[in-house]
């Protein structure tokens, strides 16, 4: 057990820090007020800058444009990016989920074709998993792919697709054998979003944004070489993707939380409550300290998980506790922010009296999605119950 960085990790971090200090765009926060397209173009440019600097795909193989470094260096990378206040990268799902899936299950031809363009943000990816009738019960999905010569013909609908509006490609889970038991008849396909028959519609969410989309597939033709892994074994591929989502994805998140926490503590010194700074109110102090501590524990949990993954090579079902922890913690953190800010907490961007340009009002609403997206808290608890603790399936 040694949480200090090794000499090599330290060298990596220092080199990265120097590079980030010279390249992170200044004052990019105003970008949020730009149109979604303009903002996204900015994020793509930023990712391209990282790629050109050799900083995209830290733990990916060098043969495909990665750096071939360790998982821990990948973790350090996400943390340093957050510490530097850098913009996020545009190709979030490509980098975090689709790329690792192709690395784990893809053919050499697929790796050569797709990975480099994920890193350079030349091709943006989305993930076609959930359907109107297949949310938590993902394996019950109905989008069908019928073999026709050397291609599949796809018909169906996906929903809650993040980045669907920006995506060039989609990692799509489809049913290739309707007669098999539901987990056995699925296949993962890589689908070009420009294929005729693909229609993307925006879904407006409670924050007022349109992060998500519905995607409709009507007689969409996809070549068989776009199958990832084996036909009818797509469930294993999809679960591999989801474990990445739950395992390594949130490495920079604890830094973001820590920064939000620091800001809340600063606000508590300014905001007055009962004639004195809120930071002197014993109840507020207790709540801030609890939240601060949980952010620290989230970090410690992640570090243990990353160490385990870097020893074993694959994220396991234990990753579900990270998902539960970060999503529920963010809701508690946003709730404490609201409590601290009182009536000002509800003011959204655009109101001259809004605190931090409405970030806390937005954060409060957005946090409700955290315990639903990427597998609900209930599904995560099922996974822990069945796959970690060995309890019988509940469904």
């Amino acid at each position, binding site marked *: *057990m*040694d*949480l*200090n*960085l*090794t000499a090599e*990790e330290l060298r990596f971090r220092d080199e990265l820090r120097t590079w980030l200090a010279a390249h992170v765009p200044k004052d990019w926060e105003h970008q949020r007020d730009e149109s979604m397209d303009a903002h996204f173009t900015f994020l793509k440019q930023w990712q391209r800058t990282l790629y050109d600097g050799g900083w995209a795909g830290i733990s990916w193989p060098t043969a495909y444009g990665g750096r071939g470094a360790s998982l*821990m260096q990948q*973790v*350090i990378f996400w943390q340093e990016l957050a510490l530097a206040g850098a913009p996020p990268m545009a190709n979030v799902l490509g980098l975090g989920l689709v790329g690792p899936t192709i690395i784990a299950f893809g053919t050499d031809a697929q790796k050569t074709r797709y990975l480099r363009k994920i890193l350079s943000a030349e091709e943006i990816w989305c993930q076609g998993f959930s359907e109107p009738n297949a949310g938590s019960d993902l394996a019950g999905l109905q989008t069908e792919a019928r073999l026709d010569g050397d291609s599949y013909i796809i018909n169906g609908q996906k929903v809650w697709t993040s980045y669907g509006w920006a995506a060039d490609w989609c990692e799509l889970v489809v049913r290739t054998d309707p007669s098999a038991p539901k987990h056995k008849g699925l296949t993962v396909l890589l689908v070009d979003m420009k294929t005729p028959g693909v229609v993307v519609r925006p879904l407006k969410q409670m924050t007022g944004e349109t992060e998500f989309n519905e995607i409709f597939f009507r007689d969409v033709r996809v070549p068989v070489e776009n199958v990832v892994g084996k036909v009818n074994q797509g469930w294993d591929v999809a679960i591999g993707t989801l474990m990445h989502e739950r395992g390594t994805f949130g490495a920079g998140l604890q830094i973001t939380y820590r920064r939000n926490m620091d800001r809340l*503590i*600063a606000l*508590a*010194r300014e905001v007055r409550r009962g004639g004195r700074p809120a*930071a002197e109110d*014993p109840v507020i*102090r*207790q709540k*801030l*300290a*609890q939240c*601060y*501590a*949980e952010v*620290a*524990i989230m970090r*410690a*949990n992640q*570090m*243990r998980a*990353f*160490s*385990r993954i870097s*020893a074993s090579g694959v994220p396991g079902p*234990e990753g*579900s*506790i990270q998902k*539960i*922890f970060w999503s529920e913690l963010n809701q508690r953190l946003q709730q404490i922010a609201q409590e601290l800010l009182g009536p000002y907490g509800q003011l959204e961007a655009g109101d001259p009296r809004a605190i931090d340009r409405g970030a806390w009002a937005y954060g409060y609403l957005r946090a409700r999605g955290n315990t639903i997206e990427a597998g609900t808290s*209930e599904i*995560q*608890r*099922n996974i*822990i*119950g*069945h796959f*970690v*603790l*060995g*309890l*019988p*399936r*509940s469904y």
Partner: protein
Amino acid sequence: MQFGLSESQTILRDSAREFFAGECQMARVRRLAETDTAHDAALWSTLAEQGYTGIIFDEEYGGVGLGVVELVLLMEEAGRALLPGPLFSTVALAGAVIDACASPAQKKKYLAPICDGAARATLAMLESSANWDPAGVAMTARGGRLTGEKLFVPDAAVAGSIVVVVRDGVYVVDATATGVRIAPMAGMDLTRKLYAVTFADVPAEKLDHGAGLPRGLQVATAALVAEMVGGMQRTLDITVDYAKTRKQFGKPIGSFQAVQHMCADMYLETESARSAAYYAAWALQVGAPDAAEAVSIAKMYASDAGRAVGNRGIQIHGGMGFTWENDLHLYYRRAKSSETALGDATFHRERIARLVIDAAPD
């Protein structure tokens, strides 16, 4: 960066687990719980033979010279087995404070007999105010002699030395000296007995470096959190086994989500407390600048989580969980005593607030 156990740490943990599984089965725990002191001289000798009583002390005093991380791994296994008696009080509490406050000569005098199993010790700090902040201690020393009352002193009846925290420093008292009176308190934890200790003009030796007290208490707190984690893990294991075998409506109750999700929460809380304990131990071991903060975070979390895990474990067992014959209440009792020992969650949240809110903004 590697937040897993090294090979030698894994070996230490596994051999401790095996040792306690053999030497500290529940039948023995229950037998000791029914005695006045919960101390077993034969068990104590085997603990000393294993090197456990000297685990963190320097080899020049007869110890094994390992670090706080190793102490934490040992205490986690002791907690899992619900080890009765004075290992925690002697090694992690009094021993860690002596180690942090004593001169080399004093260490030789007090730690060497602990390492070889000849002596046991405890720490007397709380008074009627029950404040774990050393600044809240009222008792004073006069001319090297102590007078006053200390409460909630663990295992005092079997301790040879009592480390006493007073206003002007840390002293060691011979527990058999004239003027020392040790009276049992009816604590809930049957495996760790508590005492009221009164001192009537008792001679005491002042430890040379009383300023080391916070460090000693931090090591003790990390060890206690680890012991709590062991108890949480055992409570989870017992409960999951029960949920797999107990059937209602023709199915194991663990197949019902209301039960399964409680088990998942127990797992999340146990793992999170473990992460916090390991991090605190490592921070203490390397002298990280956030060590005090990390210890308070760990104790805060484990104090609430230990209780929550026990609550759920008993609930899942239904009527059986409420019986004397079921082992859960023994762990539940320990969890309550450990929750308040060295400061409960509210106490440590205020500590964290002082460290992170009151610190000058940067």
